[in-house]
């Protein structure tokens, strides 16, 4: 046992007090918001219905989608389940959908990222009397199933992004020519490819209208920050000051913001992209990102569930609901950040 009056005892005692004081002096950094559904599960007009939502990739974008789905499910009294592979994987998604259907749900909500892989499961669900709604991504020909879809028109949203980035490129650099980099962290994803296509079209249209001659180059980024920053840095170095803007097909403009801050390059080019995840909103707030396009992910959960509820009772057929392309920039960031805080 240590004698409290010995030198070792004094050192240990003093150290403990100093340590405790230091710990107590640190203010709590707990953030408010987040957590599960705001609504209490239990009774509801459709109590006991089982609904499963299968996404193709559980990236941060889907957090508000899940919340919207679970919020609506709680109001209805549903048993809800939200599943998907940790990274985009068509085969795994198909398998999860099949397992979900074997759980005999009353309804399912799927994302459909290509035009054939998921059709077998959709047909099986419909043949077995399970209601199906598509959310976020539906593919070109989803109407053939006669089912509803809640999501964004990716090409048009890309066009909005293209026009916006051209405007900010001019504003930030004053130049009428230069390269706008179109980032894509998941080549092969039809949604992101369509957005990139739309971005190019939007920039082309803006060039014609405003007499500019911006060109585009596609950069494969990553959802991994260090990998993304590394490829962004390499691209910037390779173009030697020729880059006037960065338009990313998803939330990877947050990585452009991180990189630009580190290199003291914030404001030297236009930066924009998609989605309203917290790091993107923070960067819009501090000016490292000029704009981001929201697609109302909460609605992609809530409205998809609501369409399903309507199909259960009274039985209205579901239809298309466009979640739009909301432009979020310095002018409206405060209100949007407040709204989105509950999903952080």
């Amino acid at each position, binding site marked *: 046992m240590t004698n409290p009056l010995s030198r070792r005892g004094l050192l240990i005692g003093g150290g403990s007090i100093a340590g405790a004081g230091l710990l107590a002096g640190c203010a709590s950094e707990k953030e408010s918001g987040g957590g599960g559904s705001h609504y209490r599960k239990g009774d509801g007009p459709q109590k006991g219905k089982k609904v499963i939502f299968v996404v193709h990739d559980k990236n941060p974008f889907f957090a508000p989608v899940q919340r919207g789905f679970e919020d609506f499910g709680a109001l209805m009294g549903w048993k809800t*389940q939200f*599943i998907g592979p940790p990274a985009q*994987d*068509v*085969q795994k998604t*198909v*398998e999860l959908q099949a397992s979900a259907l*074997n759980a005999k749900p009353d309804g399912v909500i799927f994302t459909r990222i*290509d035009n054939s892989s998921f*059709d077998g499961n959709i047909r099986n669900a419909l043949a077995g009397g399970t209601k199906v709604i598509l959310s976020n991504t539906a593919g070109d020909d989803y109407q053939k199933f006669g089912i509803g879809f809640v999501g964004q028109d990716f090409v048009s949203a890309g066009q909005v992004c293209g026009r916006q980035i051209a405007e900010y490129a001019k504003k930030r650099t004053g130049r009428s020519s230069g390269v706008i980099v179109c980032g894509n962290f998941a080549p092969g994803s039809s949604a992101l490819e369509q957005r990139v296509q739309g971005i190019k079209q939007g920039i082309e249209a803006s060039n014609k209208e405003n007499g500019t001659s911006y060109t585009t180059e596609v950069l494969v980024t990553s959802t991994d920050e260090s990998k993304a920053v590394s490829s962004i840095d390499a691209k910037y170095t390779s173009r030697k000051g020729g880059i006037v803007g960065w338009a990313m097909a998803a939330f990877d403009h947050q990585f452009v913001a991180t990189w630009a801050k580190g290199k003291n390059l914030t404001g030297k080019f236009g930066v924009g992209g998609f989605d309203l995840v917290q790091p993107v909103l923070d960067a819009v707030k501090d000016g490292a990102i000029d704009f981001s396009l929201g697609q109302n992910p909460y609605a992609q959960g809530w409205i998809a569930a609501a369409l399903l509820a309507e199909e259960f009772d009274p039985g209205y057929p579901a239809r298309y609901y466009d979640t739009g392309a909301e432009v979020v920039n310095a002018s409206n960031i405060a209100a949007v950040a407040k709204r989105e805080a509950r999903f952080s």
Partner: protein
Amino acid sequence: MTLQQEIAAAYRVDDSAGTPLRRLLGAREFGVFAATIVIFVVCAIGADGFLATDNLLSIAQQIAILGIVATGMTFLVIAGEIDLSVGSLHGFLAVELAWLVTKVGVPIGTAAPLAILTGAAVGLVNGLITTKFKIPSFVVTLAALSVLRGAALLLANGVPVRGSRDSAFIGLVSGTPLPHLAAQVLWLVAIVAIGAYVLTKTKFGFDVYSVGGNRSAAAGAGIPADRVKISCFALTGALTGVASVILVGWLGSANPLTGNGFELGVIAAVVVGGAGLAGGTGSLLGTLLGAVITGVITNALVLFGVDGNWQQVATGALILAAVMLNQLVARRSPHRRH
């Protein structure tokens, strides 16, 4: 018994002697078999609808592709090597097949064997680089993983490519020859049966165990270790090609991101099945049971109503528990005592 067979026998479990019970308890697969039974019983009791015929056949369908690639990987792991590129190769070959059929116009009857041959060729190259340049296979195949994923994206131009709509092809690789029984399950059974025969009854199978168990002793016995390993790489590539052909027939298209992380599932099935990554140990029955365990866990977690994020945690924990149970039972089994 030849010297080669003696070396192989030192690293294989002889489960052919004694009573059926003794043989069962002595089999290397008994541990993973016990783990499979435990998981099955838990799921049967707790997960509503788990034992439904549709569900069990759906699980079988889901593990078919994994099991086919894991068959090749078992040969490779027993030979003391590993292939981390099978996920990307799976994606590349699926895209290659769809591209050949719908963009070039090659008939599916020619394109499918071509995809399998390409897989074998990629495996051959991986094997040659590994053995001739003495570079660890995980480094070589890690590089191949990146190259093949990029190649798939380039070939597909970043978007999914539509597959063959030939009904005979679709029926052959992914139809339902018997009610509720998908063709890919029959492909899996046939491939595992042939693989098990080759591994346990042929000279090549003995050589695989010998090379993985003790390379220098195998070399001393005149076994061409490099050739055996290269053959295992090529076999893994070819079976990945078979899996890709089945996938394209099943899903009707090929996404360049197909197989993202797939290699980990394949390696997990092989390791859960009792194969040691150091080489020299493992069996195809064990691998098949390993694939069944991973498939059952994924399916049952959905039936149990487990939320997506928890499924990742639960899958990892259950695989670890299955491996531990396997090791525990294997240590107590009679063959370990000599």
